[in-house]
């Protein structure tokens, strides 16, 4: 089955507009995806009909809201292949999910001299929490290097792994370059030395099959808004035994069993990690986003996006002055590039003048940019609703900009 891209586009109202006098071509999907009508409807419906605080209300609205909220948890569980929904914790986003693990797993299991491995590809959200943890505990952060193409150097990873390694926290697919890391192989190698693995799935979960049981990862972090869902919502998956052994993250309502001024006992997972009123509307509206991906089919989505990526590469590979950045063999649909003698910011602004939305800069991966000797890149990232015609317009616009300084 292939993608009927026009019927998919009709589900996304935001795509049907002009920007700066041109039809919008939205190629900033690695930053956030657009939302289908069903997600928008779910948000509105919740506030119009069901708005209520969840889990302890003794009334019908609270019951409806609670039921829908927990239905999303079931959907997420199925989406990533978790054993049980209690292993699904709602957070504010990938960043908070990683911070939660750094604070709680870190407090429980990390000591002076222990090692945490990350890679050169990481987003700042998978660097800074570990730096903070290392500062606090005396643990040591080690970095897996990459090749010029943007792939992990496996031998170096193996050399870094040891009995001191307590955690490998690694990106599944790079936001800046698109590189897909060999997650299963990394996880198996880490487990062999007794280390746990956190997989940063912010970019992979919308494009690839990510099955936490098949992968056997210990934690998975991702954000709803990159999966056609609402902003302000993320997921942390963790294996039950780990989550149960970890102390709570934030203290407050919901996460307690009993509070006295002498002693508080904590709720069971997942509630232990969900202090305070969560993003109820967003959680409820995340379900139709997952339904959209599931009904479209991950394999179909990946196939379509990969076709767009290959087409962009084909159209731009011989254009004078266009320098692709990140040429790993396995990639999600991210096309990062620079134009000779031009600043990425200028390129982005010229594309914007044509209604083409891309991202420019360091993509919150400054150490990666330093490794590549770049100030930044221009990044076009594709989603299921992008078309080959859009790729053509994009490629023509890039070629025109490149010709300014590359006669």
């Amino acid at each position: 089955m292939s993608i009927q891209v026009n019927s998919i586009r009709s589900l996304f109202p935001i795509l049907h507009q002009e920007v700066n006098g041109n039809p919008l071509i939205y190629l900033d999907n690695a930053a956030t995806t657009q939302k289908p009508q069903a997600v928008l409807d779910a948000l509105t419906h919740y506030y119009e009909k069901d708005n209520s605080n969840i889990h302890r209300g003794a009334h019908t609205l609270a019951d409806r809201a609670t039921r829908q909220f927990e239905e999303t948890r079931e959907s997420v569980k199925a989406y990533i292949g978790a054993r049980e929904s209690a292993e699904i914790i709602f957070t504010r986003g990938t960043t908070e999910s990683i911070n939660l693990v750094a604070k709680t797993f870190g407090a429980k299991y990390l000591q002076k001299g222990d090692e945490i491995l990350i890679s050169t590809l990481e987003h700042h959200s998978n660097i800074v929490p570990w730096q903070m943890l290392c500062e606090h505990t005396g643990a040591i952060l080690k970095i897996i290097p990459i090749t010029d193409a943007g792939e992990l150097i496996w031998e170096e990873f193996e050399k870094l792994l040891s009995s001191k390694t307590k955690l490998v926290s690694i990106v599944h697919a790079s936001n800046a370059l698109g590189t897909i890391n060999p997650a299963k192989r990394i996880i198996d190698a880490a487990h062999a030395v007794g280390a746990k693995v956190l997989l940063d799935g912010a970019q992979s979960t919308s494009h690839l099959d990510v099955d936490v049981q098949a992968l056997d990862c210990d934690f998975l972090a991702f954000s709803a808004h990159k999966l056609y869902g609402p902003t302000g919502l993320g997921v942390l998956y963790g294996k039950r035994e780990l989550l149960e052994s970890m102390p709570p993250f934030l203290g407050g309502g919901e996460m307690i069993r009993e509070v006295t001024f002498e002693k508080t006992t904590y709720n069971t997972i997942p509630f232990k990690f969900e202090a305070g009123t969560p993003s109820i509307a967003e959680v409820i509206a995340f379900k139709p986003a997952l339904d959209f991906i599931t009904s479209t089919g991950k394999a179909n989505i990946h196939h379509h996006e990969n076709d767009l990526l290959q087409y962009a590469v084909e159209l731009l590979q011989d254009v004078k002055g266009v320098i692709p950045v990140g040429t790993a063999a396995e990639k999600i649909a991210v096309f990062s590039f620079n134009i000779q003698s031009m600043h990425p910011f200028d390129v982005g602004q010229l594309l914007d003048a044509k209604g083409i939305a891309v991202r420019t800069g360091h993509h919150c991966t400054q150490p990666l940019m330093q490794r590549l000797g770049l100030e930044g890149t221009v990044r076009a990232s594709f989603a299921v609703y992008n078309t080959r015609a859009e790729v053509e317009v994009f490629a023509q616009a890039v070629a025109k900009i490149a010709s300014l300084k590359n006669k």
Partner: protein
Amino acid sequence: MSTIADIQNEIVAEFEILGEDRESTIFYIMELGGTLEPYPESFRKDEYTIQGCQSKVWLVAEEQEGKVIYKADSNTDITKGLISLLIRVLNHQSPKEILNADLDFIPRIGMGNILGSQRSNGLAAMMNQMKRYALAFQTKQNA
């Protein structure tokens, strides 16, 4: 010598000719960047960069016969173009005139809309730094 207000009016008139087309406006700004005088390499240091710009901007000024002479550079062509406009408006004016100047050509040519918030903030930071130099020279003149 034209006044700051005169030069601003000239710039507004030039941009009116370009019309509404955003791409040609940006191309024009980039071309203007090419007209900037070479920046003195001895001043290409961190202490001369302006905080608040996403792109890198170096700015230095000196006083000659009571007038302020600015020199600036950037690593992006669009920013260089914007700098060239600011320099065209403020160069060879007295510190007092610069401090009192109402730099309204930016909104009048619709630049905020074209640039977006990031570059607009950078532009504001650049104008502030230019005025700070003027203030320093004025203080020196009055001392």
